C-alpha cells in the first residue's frame, strides 16, 4: 500500500513543524485528502497510529476527504471525478500519480484532455496544533 508512504510523509512533516514551533506535544492535525487519488482513509489512519511516537504519541489525526472536481481549460465545463467510470487499471494508475488522469480522462462536454484540478487532487495538511 502506498498509503503507508503518505502516512510517513505526514509524520515527517508534522514532526518538523513540532520542532520548529517548539511544541512539547502535538495535540491535533487536520489532513485533507483529495478523492482523485482514491486513498484508503482507513489505512492512512491505521498507519498513523502505528507510526506516531515522541511528540506525536497522543496526537489526534483528523483525516477528511475532499471531493475531486475538474475543470476543462477549453470550454470551462466543471465536473466531478467519478472513479466508477474508469476501468480498474486506469483507476490504479491515477491512484499512484493523479496527473496521469490527463492520459485517460476527457472533458465530458467537449472531449479535451486539457483540464485542471479545481480541488481534491491531493493530500495536504490543513493545520497542526500543539502545546508549548
Amino acid at each position, binding site marked *: 500500500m502506498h498509503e503507508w508512504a503518505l502516512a510517513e510523509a505526514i509524520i515527517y512533516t508534522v514532526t518538523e513543524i513540532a520542532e520548529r514551533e517548539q511544541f512539547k506535544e502535538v495535540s491535533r492535525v487536520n489532513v485533507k485528502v483529495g478523492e482523485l487519488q482514491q486513498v484508503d482513509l482507513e489505512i492512512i489512519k491505521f498507519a498513523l497510529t502505528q507510526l506516531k511516537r515522541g511528540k506525536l504519541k497522543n496526537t489526534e489525526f483528523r483525516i477528511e476527504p475532499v471531493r475531486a472536481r475538474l475543470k476543462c481549460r477549453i470550454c470551462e465545463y466543471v465536473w466531478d471525478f467519478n472513479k466508477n467510470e474508469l476501468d480498474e487499471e486506469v483507476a490504479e494508475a491515477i491512484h499512484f*500519480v*493523479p496527473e496521469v488522469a*490527463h492520459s485517460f480522462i476527457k472533458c465530458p462536454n467537449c472531449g479535451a484532455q486539457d483540464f485542471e484540478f479545481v480541488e481534491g487532487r491531493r493530500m495536504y495538511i490543513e493545520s497542526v496544533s500543539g502545546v508549548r
Partner: protein
Amino acid sequence: MLDPRIKAIEHRLSQVKNIIAVSSGKGGVGKSVVSSILALILSKKGYKVGLMDLDFTSPSTHLILGIKGLFPEEKEGIIPPTFEDIKFMSIVYFSKDKALSLRGQDFSDSFIEILAITKWNKLDYLILDMPPGINDATLDVIRYMRKVKFIIVTTPSILSFSTVKKLIDTLNTLKIEIIGVIENMKSDQTYSIGEELGEVKAKFLGEIPFDPELEKCFGNTKMLLTTKFSRELEKIVNEIRM
C-alpha cells in the same frame, strides 16, 4: 496548506549516494541513450544503480533497454521493479504508453508524487534521464534533489552547444555541480566542442562517435554493451570520478 510530500522526498533519497542528471537543454542529442547505457555500465561494475526516466511526455529509456511487462510493487510505498539489477522508474508504468501532456504545475506534482512514494533504498547512483529543454524538470530536480550533479550531452553543432552554454550558466549560477560535458554523435567534422569548452566553466569528458549500429541493438542489453557507443562511454566513465 502544507504539502507533506516535500519532506518525504528527503527521506526517500537519504540512502542514495549520487544523483546524476543527464541533461542538455537541446533535444535529440542522445541523453536517453547515454543515461540508459550509463546505468548499464555502472551496474555491470557492481554498483547499486537506479534509473529514472523524467521525460514524462516521451519516455524512451524503457525502449532502449527493452523493459516491458514490469509494474512497481506497492509495499509501504512503491518499490521500483528491477531490470538486470537496475531499479527502474518511469511514468510509462502509469501512463501506459498513452500521450501525456502536462503543464508546469502538473509536471511538478507528478514528479513530487513519484519521488515521495518511491522507495529506492540503498543506491550508489541514481541516474536521471532528463527531458529536452531547461524547464520544469531541470528546476524541480535542482529544487528537490539538492545533491544532484549534471552530465551534459551535446552534439558537435554550434546550435546544440549554444543551448548547452546556457544550461551551464544556469547551473553555475545555482551552484550545482557539473561533472562535465560529453560530445555525442561526433563525426569527422572540424568543429570541436572540446576546444570551445575553455570559455565556459565545465569539464570536457570526451566524445562518442556516431555509431550506425546503435539503433539495431535497442532492446537488447548484451548487444548494447558491445557497441562502439558503449565502449566509448565506458572509457569516459573510467576517466571520471563520479
